[in-house]
C-alpha cells in the first residue's frame, strides 16, 4: 500500500513514535492552535496501538525531533498528519507483535494486544510495549505493509474524547508560550511605529539613556527602525516601552497614504487577472462576461478583518554560540526556521524552533514576527533566554489582516435555472507567510532592521482553490461559468492568510447571490440550490440542516421580525460539505440584528473526534458571525485606528446564538478537513435571513444597523 505523503517524506518510525518508560510518545509535525489536533492524533494513535487515549502523549511540531510537516493550515492536519500517524502506529503495532512473537516463539497471528500488553492467550505469556522495546528506538522505516485497524473494529475513533490539552489550561498549568519564562529569563518588549507608513525620525539620546538607566532596564535596542527594550522583569519592560513610545517620533511617508475607499481602489488597481477553471487559475486571455436573457448583477464586499487572537504574539529566543533556540507559536516551525535563517544570515541547521501554544490564531498572525523580534533582541545577550511578548496594540496594529475583497457577480436565468455565471473577484494577497529568502522577507523586524530586507512581492496563488479564488468556483451545475480573480499587489496594508482565505468572501457572495437569483426566479431558495446540485452529499447536508430548521419553532418577540436563511458550501470543493441555517431577529426601530440560533449540518467523511469536530464547526459559525455583524478594521490616513477591543469590537457572550450541529458520519470514507467549513456559509446565511426578515439585501460586511439603514434607504430610492 502506498504510504501517506507525510510518512513517505518522514519514513523513520522513530520520527513518529517513541516509548519513554510506560509513556507512548507520538510526534506530529502539525501544531496545536486550539483546534484540538493533539486530541485527534492521540485518538488515532491509541486506536492503532490498542491503548487508552490517556496513555498517549502527543508532541507537536519541532525542528529538533519528529516529522517535518511544513505548516498547520488549510484544515489539512487530520488528512495529512492523521493518516500518517495511523499508518506509522499500525507499523509500530505490527513491529511489536513481531518482536513478541519472536520472544514467545510463536506466530504473530496467535497474539492479542490490549492496553499496551501483548499476550499469547494459549500460554498466558505477556510482554508490555516497554519490555519489548527495551529502551531501543524505532529505528526502522515504514514499509506500507502493516494494515491499520479495520473501521468496524474501532473503539475510540468517531467517539467523543476529553481534550488532552485542556486540564493544564484551566488549572494554571504551563500551557502557553507566555508561561515558559523562568527565574533567569529576561523580558523584552517591542516598540513599533504606528504602521508601515512610518519610519524612525528621532529618539533623543538623553531620553534613550534615561530609559536605559531605569532600575531593571538592561538596554534599549535601536537597529534601524527596529526598536525594543530589554529588562530584568516583564513589568519593567512594559513600563520602559511606554516611556519609549512617549519619547520616539515616527514620521509617515506621504506616498504611503492609504486609499480612502479600499473597495473602489481594489476594483481599479488589479495587477494580475487570471481566469479560474475548475478552481485553478490558468494563463489565458480574459474573456468578456457571458450572459443571455434575464440577467442579474450584484456586488458584494468585505472589509479588512483581524485574526484577533486573545493572547498577543510572543516567543522566547536564546543564542548559544552560533546556535539559536526559539520557542514560537508559528504555524510552521520549519517555515519560520528558514525565514529566520535567511533574515539572520545563518544556516537553518543552526536554528531549533520548537512549537509552543498561544491563544488561537485562525491563520497567520504575529507569531512569526514575534519569533524574529525575540531572536533580534536575544542576539544582544548571548546565553540568555529572552521572552518577548507583544502587547494588545502591537497585535491589533501589526498582525497581517484578512484582505478586503470585492465580488462582482452576474448571472442569467432561464426557466428557473442558471444558464450563465460570472464572477470577478478583487483582493490583495491572502498569502504573506515567512519565506526562506536571502533578500526579501515577510518578517517585520527584517524590514525594520538596519540593512533592511525588502518586502516580498505579492504573487497570485496558482494552486487549486488557494488564496483569493478559494471556493470562487461553485460546485453547482451551471452550464457556463466565467470566474476571474484579480490580484491587487499594493502592500500599504499588510495582509495574509486568515481562516478560510478567499472562501469567506466568495461563499458569502455566491450563496447570497443564489438567494437573489432564486427570488428573481420565484423559486424557494433551498429548492433552487437543490435543483442545481447533483452531489448527493451536498444535497444531504442541505436537506438535513433545512429539516432541522423546519422542526424548530423560532420564538417571537414584539418589535422584532424573525428571519431565516440558509447557505451551503463544500470547503475548497473537496473537503467538508457544510450547510448553515441562521435564525435571527431584526429590530423594527433600531434595525439591530440579533442572532437567535444557528444550525449546521456537515459531512467530513470519517469522524475522528466527534466533539472536536462539532466544536470546530460551531466555533467557525460564531467567529464568522462576529466578522459579519461587527468587524471592520478602521484606518486614518496612514495607520489603523483599531488598536484595542473597543475600537475593534467582536461578538460578546450576550450576542452569540445557540448552535446545533448535525454530523453525517461516513466511516467508510477518508476524513476531510472541517476547521474552516462554516466560515463561508455563515455570512450568506445571515444575509439571507435578514432579507427574509425585512426584505432588504445586505451586500457589504459588516452588517451593522447603520449598514442596514443605508441599504434600506438605497433600495427605497431605487424603487
Amino acid at each position: 500500500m502506498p504510504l501517506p505523503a507525510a510518512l513517505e517524506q518522514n519514513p523513520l518510525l522513530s520520527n513518529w513514535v517513541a516509548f519513554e518508560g510506560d509513556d507512548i510518545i507520538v510526534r506530529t509535525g502539525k501544531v496545536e492552535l486550539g483546534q484540538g489536533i493533539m486530541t485527534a492524533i492521540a485518538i488515532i494513535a491509541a486506536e492503532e496501538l490498542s491503548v487508552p487515549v490517556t496513555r498517549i502523549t502527543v508532541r507537536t511540531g519541532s525542528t529538533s525531533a519528529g516529522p517535518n510537516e511544513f505548516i498547520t493550515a488549510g484544515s489539512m492536519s487530520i488528512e495529512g498528519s492523521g493518516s500518517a500517524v495511523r499508518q506509522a502506529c499500525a507499523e509500530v503495532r505490527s513491529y511489536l507483535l513481531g518482536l513478541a512473537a519472536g520472544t514467545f516463539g510463536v506466530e504473530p497471528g496467535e497474539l492479542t494486544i490490549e492496553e499496551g500488553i501483548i499476550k499469547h492467550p494459549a500460554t498466558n505469556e505477556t510482554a508490555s510495549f516497554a519490555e519489548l522495546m527495551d529502551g531501543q528506538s524505532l529505528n526502522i522505516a515504514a514499509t506500507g505493509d502493516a494494515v491499520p485497524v479495520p473501521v468496524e473494529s474501532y473503539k475510540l475513533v468517531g467517539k467523543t474524547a476529553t481534550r488532552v490539552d485542556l486540564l493544564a489550561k484551566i488549572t494554571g498549568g504551563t500551557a502557553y508560550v507566555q508561561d515558559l519564562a523562568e527565574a533567569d529569563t529576561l523580558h523584552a518588549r517591542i516598540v513599533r511605529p504606528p504602521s508601515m507608513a512610518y519610519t524612525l525620525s528621532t529618539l533623543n539620546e538623553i531620553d534613550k539613556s534615561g530609559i536605559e538607566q531605569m532600575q531593571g532596564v538592561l538596554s534599549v535596542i535601536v537597529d534601524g527602525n527596529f526598536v525594543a527594550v530589554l529588562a530584568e522583569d516583564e513589568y519593567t519592560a512594559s513600563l520602559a516601552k511606554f516611556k519609549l513610545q512617549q519619547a520616539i517620533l515616527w514620521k509617515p511617508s506621504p506616498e504611503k497614504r492609504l486609499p480612502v475607499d479600499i473597495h473602489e481602489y481594489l476594483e481599479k488597481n488589479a495587477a494580475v487577472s487570471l481566469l479560474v477553471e475548475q478552481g485553478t487559475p490558468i494563463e489565458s486571455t480574459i474573456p468578456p462576461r457571458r450572459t443571455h436573457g434575464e440577467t442579474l448583477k450584484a456586488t458584494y464586499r468585505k472589509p479588512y478583518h483581524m485574526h484577533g487572537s486573545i493572547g498577543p504574539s510572543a516567543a522566547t529566543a536564546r543564542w548559544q554560540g552560533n546556535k539559536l533556540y526559539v520557542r514560537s507559536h508559528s504555524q510552521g516551525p520549519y517555515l519560520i526556521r528558514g525565514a529566520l535563517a535567511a533574515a539572520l544570515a545563518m544556516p537553518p541547521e543552526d536554528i531549533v524552533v520548537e512549537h509552543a501554544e498561544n491563544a488561537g490564531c485562525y491563520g497567520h498572525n504575529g507569531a512569526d514576527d514575534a519569533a524574529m523580534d525575540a531572536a533580534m533582541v536575544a542576539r544582544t545577550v548571548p546565553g540568555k533566554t529572552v521572552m518577548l511578548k507583544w502587547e494588545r496594540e502591537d497585535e491589533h496594529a501589526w498582525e497581517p489582516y484578512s484582505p478586503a475583497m470585492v465580488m462582482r457577480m452576474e448571472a442569467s436565468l432561464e426557466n428557473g435555472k442558471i444558464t450563465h455565471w460570472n464572477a470577478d473577484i478583487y483582493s490583495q494577497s491572502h498569502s504573506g507567510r515567512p519565506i526562506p529568502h536571502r533578500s526579501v522577507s515577510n518578517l517585520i523586524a527584517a524590514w525594520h532592521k538596519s540593512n533592511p530586507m525588502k518586502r516580498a512581492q505579492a504573487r497570485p496563488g496558482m494552486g487549486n482553490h488557494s488564496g483569493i479564488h478559494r471556493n470562487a468556483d461553485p460546485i453547482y451545475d451551471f452550464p457556463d461559468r466565467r470566474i476571474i480573480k484579480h490580484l491587487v499587489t499594493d502592500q500599504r496594508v499588510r495582509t495574509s492568510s486568515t481562516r478560510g482565505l478567499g472562501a469567506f468572501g466568495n461563499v458569502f457572495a455566491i450563496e447570497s447571490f443564489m438567494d437573489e437569483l432564486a427570488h428573481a426566479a420565484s423559486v424557494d431558495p433551498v429548492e433552487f440550490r437543490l435543483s442545481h446540485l447533483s452531489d448527493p452529499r451536498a444535497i444531504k447536508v442541505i436537506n438535513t440542516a433545512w429539516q432541522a430548521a423546519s422542526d424548530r419553532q423560532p420564538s417571537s418577540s414584539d418589535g422584532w421580525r424573525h428571519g431565516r436563511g440558509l447557505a451551503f458550501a463544500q470547503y475548497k470543493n473537496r473537503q467538508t460539505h457544510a450547510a448553515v441555517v441562521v435564525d435571527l431577529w431584526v429590530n423594527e426601530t433600531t434595525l439591530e440584528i440579533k442572532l437567535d440560533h444557528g444550525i449546521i449540518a456537515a459531512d467530513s467523511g470519517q469522524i475522528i473526534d466527534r466533539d472536536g469536530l462539532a466544536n470546530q464547526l460551531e466555533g467557525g459559525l460564531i467567529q464568522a458571525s462576529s466578522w459579519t455583524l461587527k468587524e471592520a478594521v478602521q484606518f486614518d490616513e496612514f495607520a489603523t485606528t483599531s488598536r484595542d477591543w473597543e475600537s475593534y469590537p467582536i461578538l460578546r457572550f450576550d450576542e452569540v446564538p445557540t448552535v446545533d450541529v448535525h454530523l453525517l458520519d461516513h466511516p467508510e470514507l477518508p476524513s476531510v478537513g472541517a476547521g474552516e467549513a462554516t466560515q463561508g456559509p455563515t455570512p450568506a446565511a445571515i444575509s439571507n435571513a435578514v432579507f427574509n426578515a425585512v426584505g432588504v439585501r445586505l451586500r457589504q460586511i459588516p452588517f451593522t444597523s447603520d449598514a442596514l439603514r443605508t441599504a434600506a434607504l438605497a433600495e427605497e430610492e431605487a424603487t
Partner: protein
Amino acid sequence: MNWKEPARIDHAWLTRYDRSMIRVSLKVNGMIRQVEAAPETPLIFVLRDKLNLNGPRYGCGSEHCGACVVHIDGNPAFSCTVPVETTQGKEITTVEGLGTASQLHPLQQAFLEFNAAQCGYCASGIIMAAAALLKANPTPSRTEIQVALKNHLCRCGAHNRIISAISRAAELMPAQLPASTDHGNA
C-alpha cells in the same frame, strides 16, 4: 489617532520611579506571600512573574477581554490594571486556588466534561467570573450567565460550551462548598 511630536520625558519622574520599590505582603490562594515590587505594578505581573501563577492570562491590559480576571475579596477583578499596592491585606484567588489538577473545582470539572474551550486562553478568567456568579446566584439562567460574562472575550466561538459548562457546574456544586474560595487551599 494623534501622532504629534511627543513631550520630552520627565527624567525626574523616571528616577523617582526608580527608587520606589516597596515590599508588598499579599494573601494569594490562602497563603501569605512577600514580594518586592513598584507600588503601581499591575497585579498580573506579580502573580505571573514573581509567584509563578499562570492562571491569570494577559490579553489586553485594558479591561476589555477578561483573560486576566482573578478574585479580590471574592469579587472578580482585572489583574492587568489593579495596582499591586491596593491589594495588600486582601484575599486574592486565582484559578490555581479554585482547584487543582487532582482536586478539581466543579467548574473545572464541567469545563472538561463539555470540552468548553478551543484554545482555552480565555478560560481561566471566565472560570473566575463564573465562580463569583455561582456564589451570588447558584442557579443562573443562560441569560444571567451571558450577562455575567459580558466583560470576557472568546475568539474561538466556544461560548455555548462555556455557558453549558457553567450550568453544569451549578448542578455539580455541593451545597456546602462556597463557589468562591475565600477559604483558600493553595
